[in-house]
């Protein structure tokens, strides 16, 4: 006798016939996910950080979010403005307004106003008024504003001697603000990881599904190809390809995609192999359902459980690989905001521990959050999970 039968049969009668937003199965999974408090909180913290970092331009930027000049509303955060906006008749006007220039600030303030983001540096802005030689230490390690604003024209009285212009986590060895670089670096890491994971999931699930569903020779040949493919020394290949092709976000993504999809094939193939002889799959075949439809409608949901459980860990792996490549100098082009590059600077500037520490803390925070979410996801999809 099925022991669970008396459990599930009891409340069926009271449920309305209307279709709920989440299927009952997914509702239970969501309950299981929430029951893992650590993962649940990690999800919200991660989502908050991720969404905030998507608006990095509004948080850390060397241009105002909004400015008004002679009644005209400027949105420097979205577009460049030529200096002709301010000085229409100046033959020497530059094609870009440098809003950090005190002269320009005075001009705009005289004729209007501007709203700055909380941090007045972008990831590539060089702080021309660093209090000490770069790398300069975090603002909270200085003794008061006199020291911090020593390089400004009017010292403490200077209008630029404000919180937004302090380097709260110090600067790197090129006098760029560490906090701004962290925010942008977090964003690019997570985006890189997400895109790479999604792309490799699509490729890997496709290959795994085809091999598992058709089995036989398809499976045999596919598996041997994958074995050969995955025994290539990935890091060397990456280094060689990175030396030939110009470094860049998409090229790096493409190269890594070549190898990362393999990790999905195994689990998806196993799920399809297992499920292709399920009776409801046979029933669908008996109805004359096409192979592709069977794979999508009947088998993929089975394989998605394993895939989703795997996903956060692949995401973590992708992020770590990107960081490692950046650290080695084969990653994103020079000047990009990158956590790996920050760690490298930390290694090269042991006298400036804030570089290494802040990079380390952000990376470990990000990876831990993702692992916790992954754990909770695994709990949620565990079919044997029961809560007493």
């Amino acid at each position, binding site marked *: 006798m099925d*022991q669970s039968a008396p459990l599930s049969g009891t409340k069926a009668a009271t449920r309305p016939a*209307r279709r709920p937003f989440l299927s*009952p199965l997914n509702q239970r999974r969501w309950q299981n996910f929430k029951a893992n408090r650590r993962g649940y909180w990690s999800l919200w913290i991660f989502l908050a950080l991720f969404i905030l970092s998507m608006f990095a331009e509004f948080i850390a930027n060397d241009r105002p979010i909004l400015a008004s000049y002679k009644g005209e509303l400027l949105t420097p955060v979205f577009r460049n403005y030529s200096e002709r906006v301010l000085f229409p008749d100046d033959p020497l006007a530059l094609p870009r307004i440098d809003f950090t220039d005190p002269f320009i600030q005075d001009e705009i303030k005289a004729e209007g106003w501007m709203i700055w983001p909380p941090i007045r540096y972008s990831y590539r802005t060089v702080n021309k008024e660093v209090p000490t030689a770069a790398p300069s230490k975090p603002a909270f390690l200085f003794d008061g504003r006199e020291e911090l604003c020593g390089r400004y024209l009017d010292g403490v009285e200077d209008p630029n001697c404000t919180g937004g212009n302090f380097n709260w986590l110090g600067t790197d060895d090129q006098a760029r603000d560490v906090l701004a670089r962290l925010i942008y670096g977090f964003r690019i890491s997570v985006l890189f990881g997400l895109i790479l994971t999604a792309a490799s999931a699509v490729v890997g699930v496709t290959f795994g599904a085809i091999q598992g569903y058709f089995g036989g020779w398809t499976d045999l040949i596919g598996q041997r190809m994958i074995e050969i493919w995955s025994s290539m020394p990935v890091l060397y290949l990456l280094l060689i390809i990175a030396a030939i092709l110009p470094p860049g976000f998409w090229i790096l993504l493409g190269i890594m995609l070549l190898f990362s999809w393999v990790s999905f094939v195994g689990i998806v193939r196993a799920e399809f192999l297992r499920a292709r002889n399920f009776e409801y799959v046979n*029933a669908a075949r008996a*109805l004359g*359902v096409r192979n592709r439809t069977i794979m999508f409608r009947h088998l993929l949901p089975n394989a998605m459980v394993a895939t989703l459980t795997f996903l956060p860990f692949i995401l973590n792996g992708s992020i770590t690989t990107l960081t490692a490549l950046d650290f080695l100098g084969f990653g994103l082009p020079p000047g990009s905001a990158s956590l790996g590059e920050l760690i490298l600077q930390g290694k090269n500037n042991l006298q400036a521990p804030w570089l290494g520490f802040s990079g380390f803390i952000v990376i470990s925070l990000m990876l831990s959050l993702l692992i916790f979410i992954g754990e909770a996801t695994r709990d949620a999809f565990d079919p044997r999970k029961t*809560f007493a």
Partner: protein
Amino acid sequence: MSGTPLLSVRDLSVAFTQGGETSVAVDRVSFDINDGETVALVGESGSGKSVSALSILRLLQYPAASHPSGQVLFQGKDLLSAHDKTLRKVRGDDVTMIFQEPMTSLNPLHPIERQIGEILKLHGAGPDTDIRARTLEMLEQVGIRDAEKRLKAYPHQLSGGQRQRVMIAMALANRPKLLIADEPTTALDVTVQAQILLLLDTLKREHRMSMLFITHDLGIVRKIADRVCVMTDGKIVETGATEEIFQNPQHDYTKHLLAAEPKGKPIPLNDNAPVVMTGDGVRVWFPIRKGFMRRTVDNVKAVDEIDVRVRSGQTLGVVGESGSGKTTLGLALTRMISSDGQINFNGQDIGEYSFSDMRPLRSDIQIVFQDPFGSLSPRMSIAEIVGEGLSIHEPSLTRDERDSRVVAALEEVGLDASTRFRYPHEFSGGQRQRIAIARAMVLKPKFVMLDEPTSALDMSVQAQIVDLLRDLQRKYDLAYLFISHDLKVVRALANEVMVMRNGKIVEFGPAEQIFDDPQTEYTKALMAAAFEIEVAPSGVVNE
């Protein structure tokens, strides 16, 4: 018989907690088992009979399960409140169990000698030579031939019946006072079932032990039990001596259970009905390949040169033990697997059709599978499941037309159509099988292969499904290929019967003739085992 019973279950309740909700599976159940007595616990699935039996030895999954009330007194000691250590001494020594599934109850990685020896060793049987001698003795007692050679056998080298014999040997190794048998023959063929029941009865007498026998099969109860407890919805509704219960049932549920056998007569045989499906010399051979070049040295002849003919509005019952090739034959006829020989459907020779050639014909040829729990995709709603075939074979239907066809099909099989947005797990086994039938019927097929459609269901539900199938057949003139090992169901539905064994036809003829006047020894043995639970003379059937 002494004054105190061997086992006394008093007010036993079992509750399960899941996701904060508590449901009571067993509600204040009480029964006694005296020395040397066989008590049968009878009920349909979900009645709580297995759960009650498992709680005697506290084998449920705690803490999800709990016992709000009750005592299990074994020789005066309460097992429910006993210490784990005390309980371990009782388990496997004084009280032992055999389970339903002999495939999974044995560890596939150990030879049977070790598995029987382990239980002896755990309960302090002397040196290894003694254990070996005792193991051998037990195997001989349970009727394993050449026991000495079998000691080193692994479970997969034994047949289902032999495995269940090994399980019994394990259970009896320590001369228990009470044996709990949880549906020990449900997974076995009828002929083997008769042998196992006879063995249990003999051993029970020899060892002078008591037995708690859990089953849903009233025929077995009548054969083996001294007293019967009828359970439903977690309660025992009637207790009494076996003959008394069968002759003079008091409770409505017992009456209902006794009356639940598949009844009714099949549609009368009509030799002039048009032939829908014929198979001519159908052959499904699986090659056995050996050596480096993978030469075919022999074939497993799952289906060997079989001729069949199914007429419109008629049912051909295919019966046989497991492994006789009856399902393979059905799958070959419906072109779900490849086969040799001619298969003719409605004048078309479909024997050589590829899968895509078959697609247009799939709406005429439908299959209802055995396991209603496995044959419905758990992630699709009922409307999606039933409507799936329509979207393939009648793609011109609008969404509303398709929905109304689904509603009509569900109502036809006796389901409330407003439940069509629910998912399969919210339905009982019988309801699910109705859904599976609706999925086949919505396409208005001409030929339906029914692959053991009732064997996973309770007796009373079986009867309903058989009635439903017969009504549908009458209404739409359907041709059924009815595959089953359950002869009672076949008798109620089939008007022609084919008995299969090892891929070959043993006997074929009108149903009445096969049932009432079987010609071959094998068919006779099959009938005796199915209807009388009689053991056939050795050599006629498998072990």
